[in-house]
């Protein structure tokens, strides 16, 4: 499903910073993977590359059998739109849109009819347990609720790949656990491939596979039976 070959990412700051240094990685369809490592090890960068928000300096990334290198921005956007759901640490909801509008946004962008999009958005919000919050603005919600909205949005197009950047990082542990359960539940029910960046050993332990990054290199890749 996801394949990375010798992926290198450098940032041009005052000094050249090599954030990722030759990553080779393969994630199969339906896997639920935790990406761990200390701060600055390149986790988020890796996630952004896979999520097509950014391009690698060198190396190849394959998604669903398609090589991303050489694609235009719009082609990348289409892949992102159709195949990837994003869950951000800081939710990145549009503050001026209601929950249901936020969730329906990607559908609108794909040209869905309003009623259709709304129906799907409501369905998804119900799925994440926010049926009673449809018309609320993000500011009126708690952190956990917002993350649920973000997850609903990420799922709106039923993407085969779900990318999450510290989805519980901004939440208290109880809410974090709930969200994690939700993601796992969705993973199981929808069969999406999940790649989740996390700090939390507990979170990582709940995944079938844990990939560890250190200084931009792959430092570990451990597969085990998921602990529920």
């Amino acid at each position, binding site marked *: 499903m996801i394949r990375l070959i010798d992926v290198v990412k450098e940032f041009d700051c005052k000094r050249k910073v090599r954030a990722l240094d030759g990553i080779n990685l393969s994630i199969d369809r339906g896997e639920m993977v935790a990406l761990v490592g200390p701060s600055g090890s390149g986790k988020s960068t890796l996630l952004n590359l896979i999520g097509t*928000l950014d391009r690698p300096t060198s190396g190849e990334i394959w998604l669903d059998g398609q090589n991303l290198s050489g694609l235009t921005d719009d082609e990348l*956007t289409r892949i*992102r739109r159709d195949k990837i759901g*994003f869950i951000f*640490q800081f939710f990145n909801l549009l*503050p*001026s849109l209601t929950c249901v509008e936020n969730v329906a946004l990607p559908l609108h962008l794909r040209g869905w009819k309003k009623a259709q999009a709304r129906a799907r958005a409501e369905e998804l919000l119900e799925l994440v347990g926010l049926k009673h919050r449809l018309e609320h603005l993000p*500011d009126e919600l708690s952190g956990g609720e917002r993350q649920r909205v973000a997850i609903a949005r990420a799922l709106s197009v039923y993407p085969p790949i779900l990318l999450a950047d510290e989805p519980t990082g901004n939440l208290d542990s109880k809410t974090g656990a709930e969200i994690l359960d939700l993601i796992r539940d969705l993973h199981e029910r929808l069969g999406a491939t999940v790649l989740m960046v996390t700090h939390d050993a507990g979170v990582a332990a709940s995944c079938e596979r844990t990939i560890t990054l250190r200084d931009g290199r792959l430092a570990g890749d451990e597969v085990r039976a998921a602990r529920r």
Partner: protein
Amino acid sequence: MMLLKLITWPYVRKHLLRCTLTTAGIVLGVAVFVAMHTANQSVLYAFNRTVDRIAGRTQLQVSAGEAGFPEEVLEKVQSLPDVEVAVPVIEATVQTGIPGMGNLLVVGVDMTGDRSLRDYELETADETIVDDPLVFIAQPDSIIVSRQFCDKTGLKLNDRLTMQTMAGPRQFTIRGVMSAGGLASAFGGSLAIMDIYAAQMVFGRGRRFDRIDLAVREGVRVEEARQRIQAALGPGLQVEPPTSRGAQFEAMARVYSMTANITSVFALFIGLFLIYNTFSIAVTQRRAEIGILRALGAPRSLIRNLFLAESALAGLFGSLLGIVLGVAMARGVAGYIGEYFGEVYGVGEKAEEVAADPRLLGLALLIGVATSVFAGWLPARNAARVDPVKALQKGRVQVISEGENRLRRLVAVAMLAGAVGCVFLSSHPFFFYLGYMLSVLAVLLLTPTLCTLLTRWLRPALKWLRPVEGALAADSLLQAPRRTSGTVAALALSVALVIGLGGISRASYSTIGAWVKTSLNPDFFITGSETITQRSFRFPESFADDVARVEGIEEVQPVRSTRILYKGTPVMLVAADVEKIARRVRARIVDGDRESMYARTARGEGVIISDNFSLLRRVKRGDVIELAAPNGLLRLPVLGIVVDYSDQQGTILMSRDLFKRYWGDDTVNAMRVYAKPGVDRAALRQKLLETFGSRTRLFVMTNEELRAYIMKLTDQWFGLTYVQIVVAVLVAILGIVNTLTVSITDRKRELGVLQAVGALRNQVRHTIWMEAAAIALLGLVIGFALGAVHLYYILDVAKRDVAGLRLEYLYPYGIAAVLLPVLLGSALFSAFGPAEGAVRMSLVEALEYE
């Protein structure tokens, strides 16, 4: 101060262009204010300087408006015990006909003794001629010109130049050249001096003087002497210090300041909104920074003061820039105003140098800074309310402006009600202007509400255009009314300003055009001066009969028009055969009985006044007006009021007989000539010129030429209005560019999210474009509406305080139609850059952008 340097400067440096654009409204508002007033002041200053230089050591001047008075007054003045020296003067402007020279001011003085008051500083020591006043007086073709005039024209001592005089074309000999400085630099150096008795002949003045300049006996207080001389001469003659002529001139120039003030206020209002908008957004963008400051222990007041200081600085910067721009603009404007006054009032004055009054500049600075601080006040308060905990928490957006909508709507409705109430009390100027202000403010306060309403209506249209992007754009507008309404309000103000200016010019054209068509129907106008507005040259009365005898002419109506003082303001007095004119012209009567008023005026039982005289001087039918004539005080009832735009300050029509009796003046400065039906006009004109051209100076203008001339004057009058329109449009465009840039920067993260969740580049682009177009459209629609209100008021201002023009309400659809594509275009154009920036930005950065 340290904070300003540490916190503000880096932000400003990062957004330099945007910050500069933000001050655009202030810059232009201050610039217009400074330019117009400086220009006015400069022209006035130049005028006063000319008066000063010609006056020399004159302490008092005796005059009878512009009409002049018989020679006998001189001996009477000279015999008064307070008078040391009294000398007669004739002043007239003539077109030189030399390209680039414009008007020449000819001063006729008595060369036998006048030197005690003026220093002619005669140079070119050809003393036998120059210094021989005997030759100068013996030869009436003698003139003295300034060195500047010689330099410009290449003429020199003893050269001849031809001038058309009332006794036919005459050659004049330069018998003296004044060195630069002093008298010679009056009227920008375009000055000639001739013997007063020669001037009487050249200008057809008969035995009359325009003015007597005098110096009082040593040891006598000037003001006391003035009162005694005034008492001795009676009310028909004005005895005033030379400086009072400046005050009269000022009254004429006031009109320009008035319209300029309205434009300045609008531009400053626009500036207010731009600054408010930018600061509001800046507060949001810098929330984290504010949070850190607060967390580090800065009290709320410090934060507020920081933002207030920033807005004050922005105001200062904008005002300074505006002052520089304004002073630069003033030069051109001054030239323009000077030319216009030369054309219309015959007192044309070239402002050689533009000198800005430091008090004016100080006031401009104050207004600019105050506007800016006022605009920054609300954002500064909001900044002070930033919660440090929430601000530092990433991902949490604190809504810092809530719950004002209702209050604002309430205030707006109250204001609207107030404005409506004021309409009923509008006869009182205070309530009139209050109503004006309230209605504009109400519309501005309602702008957010109106924006929401209009956007709802607009949404389907946008969606129809582009289903996804249209909806996104409309929603973005709907969901952030605060961000939108500032821009829309600024834009609406600009549009309203343009509509008002355009409307007033359109209405003026149509009103003046209609008047010209009905009232100026003679086939020819014969004048002694190049234009109908100049009255320097006059015909003897008998000349009208000579013209009437020419084959093919049916009727000649001799007219003597002159500017007299009515309650200290120069107004136009027209002395004519009232009944003859009434038979030919069906003037629109505002008040009075057509049958009796002309007959009674012809009998000298009263006067007919123009509508604008009535409005400006607050005179009604039946009122008795007092006119001070050299031969006595005239008290006459107003018998009728007619529409007449001969003069901006108002016109009084009286019978020629009465004028001759009271002013002792039987000269004529214009003749209305009607040809017999079926006579070839061109041939008749030729015949008139051939018959009289060698005998006297005359200009024969056809009806078409006169109409074209008056329309040209109207054009000139509105020339500056067009400049103001351009300024207003410029402000509008700058406003759009500014707010869109700001707004899109503000939404960097939002646009990033949009792309992250799958928006294609074109979708982002289209959304931004449509948003911009929608904002422009909102501004236009509200502006068109506000413009309609503004136009209503500005027409009333024109009627009651500026020109007494009773203008029809004509909405300038043409200008509105032009504004639509111009502003939509500039909105799209200004959205172009930000849109490209948005699609090219790094998504990773954008998503982390705060």
